[in-house]
């Protein structure tokens, strides 16, 4: 049988191969033909693309948490080291874990601050943002009564001249909201909007953006997160 020139037969067999009704010897023969026939492989994947969405007709059902734990165990997955470009996820597990780590560091810094630079008692929020190695990189102090936000890089942190650091409040749901840029890559005095310290803020993040800040048309971050942390409210 000359399959190569029989277009309707090629279509029929590919469709039934994908549907599953092509069985036994016929199925194995078809697989043999596919092996040597790129066009037939393409026809078959087109049918896969047409029929596979049938799988989505079933209502979604949540598997138990142990399924993921089993996957993690079997694949020996280590905690993720990369975390940028995941603005769109609603899963805050990861962000929250980060928040905890930096809270501890921030608490330490408050003591230092209180002894040295805390001139006005109006500063009521502090955050220490850390890099991917959990090293402190930027200190934020905020005065919610006067809507002031002060950001400064810690000693030893360098930023390339053609880049700009941009601050974001990342809410539990929805897109990050910009808090402004650190124009001189050293320190910045910014206005503190209410959304920066709102109850739904899951994380404060700093991204590395092109000079002048993100040019994303939707006002979203375009670069990787380099520092992140959480507010600690002072008494």
């Amino acid at each position, binding site marked *: 049988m000359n399959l190569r020139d029989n277009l309707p037969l090629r279509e029929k067999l590919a469709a039934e191969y994908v549907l599953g009704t092509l069985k036994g010897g016929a199925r194995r023969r078809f697989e043999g033909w596919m092996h040597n026939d790129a066009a037939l492989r393409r026809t078959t994947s087109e049918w896969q693309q047409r029929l596979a*969405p049938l799988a989505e007709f*079933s209502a979604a059902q949540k598997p138990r948490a142990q*399924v993921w734990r089993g996957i993690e165990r079997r694949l020996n997955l280590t905690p993720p080291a990369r975390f940028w470009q995941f603005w769109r996820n609603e899963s805050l597990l990861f962000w929250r874990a980060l928040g905890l780590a930096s809270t501890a560091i921030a608490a330490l810094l408050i003591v230092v601050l209180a002894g040295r630079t805390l001139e006005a008692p109006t500063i009521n929020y502090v955050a220490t943002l850390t890099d991917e190695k959990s090293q402190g990189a930027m200190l934020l102090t905020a005065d919610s009564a006067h809507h002031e936000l002060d950001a400064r890089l810690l000693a030893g942190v360098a930023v390339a001249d053609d880049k700009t650091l941009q601050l974001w409040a990342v809410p539990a749901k929805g897109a990050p909201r910009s808090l402004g840029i650190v124009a001189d890559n050293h320190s910045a005095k910014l206005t503190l909007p209410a959304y920066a310290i709102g109850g739904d803020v899951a994380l404060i993040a700093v991204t590395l953006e092109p000079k002048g800040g993100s040019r994303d048309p939707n006002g979203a971050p375009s670069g990787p997160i380099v520092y992140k942390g959480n507010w600690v409210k002072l008494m």
Partner: protein
Amino acid sequence: MLSDVNPLDPQQLRLWLQGAARRDALAFRLLYDATSSKLFGFALRILHKRELAEEVLQESFVAVWNNAGSYQSHLASPMTWMTTIVRNKAFDLLRRSNEATEIDGEQFDSEVLDALHDPQATPIEALEMSADAKALAWCMSTLEGAHRQAVGLAFFHDLSHSEVAQQLAIPIGTVKSWIRRSLERLKTCLAKRERA
């Protein structure tokens, strides 16, 4: 708004799948979060037993991680690729275990069809389907009920022509021609919707 993005948005899934190929465990986790419920629903549909469906889901995601590098985005959308893995794993398990499953000869996917016929009652959006699945659902709804059922029996239960014939108590020749015609009509219908 970013938060309104369909969780099964192929672009997003593709990014996570590419992340998984680079051994990015977080991307893989996000892929799991976005797709596991849908894929589990599918596995349950085939296997009917939660423990079996969970075993298949776990094996499937292990395979997704191990084979993410060979995923070819020009050949299949991420959901197509992953549902194919789940389907193969589910049928493998059935063959291995000699487990007898229930075969639902019920009206094929009444929920989806209801949503198509009366979007007021059940918005099709509520079923969380990708755009591909919505298009296919629409085209399936144009088939005759019994033909649709024959296609569904073959797809979800790995039945041969003669087994479908047995289930529906009709001659095998009829099943063959129903399925052949249904597949042709689906192809034409989907192509039309793509051009539209």
